[in-house]
């Protein structure tokens, strides 16, 4: 984890495309330790593409994604929109959360005592101790996201990347997850990059906003975003 205010990630003149189709171009933004960046944009604006780029699953067409020296994409705590696991996948909550520690295993085949401790303390931090023996697939949507958040935190070195974490949640669970995330940021200094389709609560909590829109992307504070043409139109549901 970096000390507060230290730049963790810088993206410069970033362009990403599938073949000839340019998804977005010339995007600049940075993330400092302790900040909460919210990435918004229409469907197809390239939010998921940017996530793939940040995770190292896809190469930028041009420009650069630069991490603070010594940390790469591998130490991001990634919370996907939904898991690929089918509904009959036999996995206990504990097994799922421990699998977040895999990135720190190196050549070791099994988890160490410290990694198990870390998984256990993350579970109590997120208040899901009592679920540890449950089957992951039998949980409600909100519980599942908490478990996947715990897995992400085991993998993370102070930085979470959340891809529309509330997409499949009901309003109560959505509210709960946003509160939990704010709490983690305030009391534990976790840096967050969150992709969101809903402009309301996500942008209210953010310290900076990145709006992806082809070649006219916006990056700045929430106040300047709301004042900008892009922000106003997006909030009203129109195209920037």
């Amino acid at each position, binding site marked *: 984890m970096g000390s507060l205010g230290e730049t963790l990630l810088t993206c410069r003149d970033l362009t990403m495309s599938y073949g000839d189709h340019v998804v977005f171009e010339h995007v600049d933004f940075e993330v400092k330790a302790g900040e909460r960046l919210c990435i918004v944009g229409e469907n197809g604006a390239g939010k998921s593409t940017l996530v793939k780029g940040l995770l190292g699953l896809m190469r930028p067409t041009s420009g650069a994604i630069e991490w603070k020296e010594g940390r790469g994409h591998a130490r991001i705590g990634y919370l996907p929109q939904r898991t690929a696991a089918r509904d009959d996948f036999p996995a206990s909550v504990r097994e799922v959360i421990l*699998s977040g520690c895999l990135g720190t295993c190196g050549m070791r085949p099994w988890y160490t005592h410290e990694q198990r401790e870390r998984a256990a303390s993350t579970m109590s931090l997120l208040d899901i101790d009592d679920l540890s023996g449950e089957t992951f697939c039998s949980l409600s949507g909100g519980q599942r996201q908490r478990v996947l958040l715990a897995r992400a935190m085991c993998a993370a070195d102070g930085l979470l990347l959340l891809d529309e974490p509330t997409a499949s949640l009901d309003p109560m669970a959505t509210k709960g997850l946003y509160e939990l995330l704010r709490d983690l940021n305030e009391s534990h200094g976790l840096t967050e990059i969150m992709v969101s389709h809903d402009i309301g609560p996500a942008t209210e909590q953010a310290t900076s906003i990145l709006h992806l829109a082809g070649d006219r992307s916006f990056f700045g504070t929430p106040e300047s975003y709301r004042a900008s043409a892009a922000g106003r139109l997006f909030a009203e549901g129109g195209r920037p």
Partner: protein
Amino acid sequence: MMAIICRILSYPFMTNALVVGTIVSLCASMLGASLVPKRYSMIGDGLSHVGFAAVAVAYALDMTPLTVAMPVCMVTAFLLLRIHESSKVKGDAAIAVVCSAALAIGVMTVSLTTGMNTDVNSYLFGSILAMSKDDVRLSVALGLVVMVVYLLFYNRFFSLTFDEEFTRATDGHAETYKTVLALLTAAIVVLGMRMMGALLISSLIVIPTLSAMRACRRFSMVVTLGAVVSVVCFMAGVTASFALSVPTGACVVLVDLAAFCLLSLISKVMRR
């Protein structure tokens, strides 16, 4: 019952078959626990058909069947796990194409050369008599390697099958794990093909895991129970096939199926 078991153990070919079969069913069920929940069940089927084609070609060229089938199946397994993501022909259709194409190549090769002889037949439907001393040595050695490698990669395979994207993002070696899983599966399919037959071997991968998934909700428990069910069913199947003089492969599959039905029933009753 004891008399039958004593008689079975008095034949050297039967003890060979029991040793090899136990190892193969143990390994197959462990690999199955990683393949079945990820919807890769048909890969065993595709591999065994390709294995059959390789054996037919090996006979035509007068080569040792296993030395041809093993590398061919390993390459196929590697390709099949990749077809799932990127090809124009999607997963299940691709495997169906591979299965029938391989079978066609095998049958064509056989009919143009020797005609359907007993050896090729035993690869299709399996033969308990097929185990030579060398086969046993090879199977034990390879089986132990598969088991050790599986246990070393256990946590990685779990993460890979549970959430491949997460694994790729947080651990840069997901592709390696996938390749290792493919190679282990190919090795076990080729080893088990002689006894169970190309047409039946994939059941050893799929059914015990399905049975265990009826009863267990934890991955480690599914692996453990699957292995126990697989070995017990294999023993029971071999004993029954010996006592009733029916084909071993088919008998083992039917016992596996019975265990699946039984466990499904028990879990249904328990949940009421």
